[in-house]
């Protein structure tokens, strides 16, 4: 019997390609926080640059939602996004706008950072209390950091979006153009959507961080379009509005196409290997 031994299968070579995007969670947090803070303290910047700050703040928030919810929050994933923006984000933005006239240095208005800092501290303390074994005992690793980042990212996002609508972070113009007109409702709901929807929609065994974060940027594009339409009639003005709409459409198209392509490409690794079998 000419028993022909099949050649041993070649050893799998795992090539780890270090991609520059997305950076790991800590780096993404630091990069986004620095960019968003730098943009928020210069209220005179054009709206499109503020929109880039919004995108970074929301991606940071989406990443925090992802790493906090990974430990089985289930129906709590949307709630944590609402909590970040409408809960701590709104209170922080209120405090920040009240302090925005302090800390002037040329074009820099550093007073708004009081709100961001205060909400980061509040988030950290509530994270510690929620993780304490004698109190709520959530036992989620790094919940403290997650809650802190959610508070800071939510506040930054709301402040930047109010700044796009009103052209400044001062209380009076924001109240007149952003809050009393009702745009604030759209800002709050869409920003929380950009934070929780990526992980809520993509969660599962084959969830990939890069693909999840693309959804967040895509929703930020939609936010830019809506903020552009709103700035047509508010203090932002016609030119700002049209710029924002064009910017939003480009961001949305690029990241939507990129997300769908990634989803099609990565779904092959499931269907192609037959991991999920149909019942015969």
């Amino acid at each position, binding site marked *: 019997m000419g028993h022909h031994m099949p050649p041993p299968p070649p050893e799998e070579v795992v090539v780890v390609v270090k991609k520059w995007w997305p950076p790991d969670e800590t780096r993404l947090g630091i990069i986004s926080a620095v960019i968003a803070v730098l943009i928020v303290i210069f209220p005179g910047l054009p709206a499109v640059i503020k929109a880039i700050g919004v995108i970074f703040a929301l991606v940071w928030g989406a990443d925090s939602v992802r790493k906090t919810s990974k430990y089985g929050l289930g*129906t709590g994933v949307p709630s944590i996004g609402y909590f970040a923006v409408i809960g701590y984000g709104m209170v922080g933005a*209120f405090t920040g706008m009240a302090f*925005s006239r302090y800390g002037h240095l040329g074009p820099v208005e550093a007073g708004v950072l009081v709100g961001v800092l205060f909400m980061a501290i*509040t988030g950290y303390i509530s994270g510690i209390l929620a993780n304490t074994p004698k109190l709520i005992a959530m036992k989620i690793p790094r919940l403290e950091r997650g809650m802190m980042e959610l508070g800071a990212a939510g506040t930054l996002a709301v402040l930047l979006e109010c700044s796009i609508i009103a052209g400044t972070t001062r209380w*009076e113009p924001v*109240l007149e153009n952003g809050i009393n007109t009702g745009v604030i409702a759209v800002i709050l709901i869409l920003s929380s959507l950009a934070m929780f929807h990526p992980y809520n929609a993509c969660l599962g065994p084959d969830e990939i961080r890069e693909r999840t974060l693309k959804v967040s940027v895509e929703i930020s594009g939609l936010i830019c379009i809506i903020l552009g339409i709103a700035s047509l009639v508010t203090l932002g003005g016609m030119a700002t509005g049209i710029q924002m709409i064009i910017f939003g459409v480009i961001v949305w198209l690029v990241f939507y196409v990129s997300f769908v392509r990634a989803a099609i490409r990565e779904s092959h690794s499931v269907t192609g290997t037959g991991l999920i079998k149909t019942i015969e």
Partner: protein
Amino acid sequence: MEPTILLIVLVCVILGGVLASLGVHLLPVGGAPAAMGTATGIATGAIMLMFGSALTGLFTAATVAMFSNSIVLVALSGAVGAMLMVSIIFLFANVTYIFGAGCVPVSGRVAVDPITKELQTPYKTPQTDGHGLPSVCLISGIIGGFIGGFGGALIYFALINYAKLEYAMAGVLAMGIILANAIIAAYNIRGTIEGFHDPKFRTTPKALLVCFVASLLCGIAIVLALTTGVITGGAV
């Protein structure tokens, strides 16, 4: 602004936050299992349920606050609005469970309904955690809506009448404080709870303590903002 007024605002914010947290513990929350009819309660997270009902409470409270300066009246109208919303949700959930899915509303945590003394266990499908909303959950949930709506309206009233904020701003801030406290309560109940008869309800004081600290910090943030003197609205 005078220190007494700031103190009243702080107290109202803390009280409202803690009441919202207590209200969440009383609502029958079923989470994802309830969506398949295998757990008692409404098929969503605790925060969505509290958010929806307290927001309706804010609408009724805002309507009454337009022509009343009585804190009790405004807070109670908020409570009634929230109760109404919760009751409507419960009614339609029960209609769907009973006539759509064909299951009997039954509690999975107690053998006998503590209020109506009806037997529960014989009607429960094996391997499930109850279905629909039995009487005790309904009553507990309505009490929860009352407490949550009362807390939300209290914050709203303090913000427009003492802090003199604009209506829109006060509503948004009240909503935010309710949400921040509701999520801490939701962390504590871990997914599902049936109401005051649930064994998990005994852990409520722990969540109330954490909510007290969180509301205190939110309240300090609001009071700090008010001390700058920038915040003007002249609502009333």
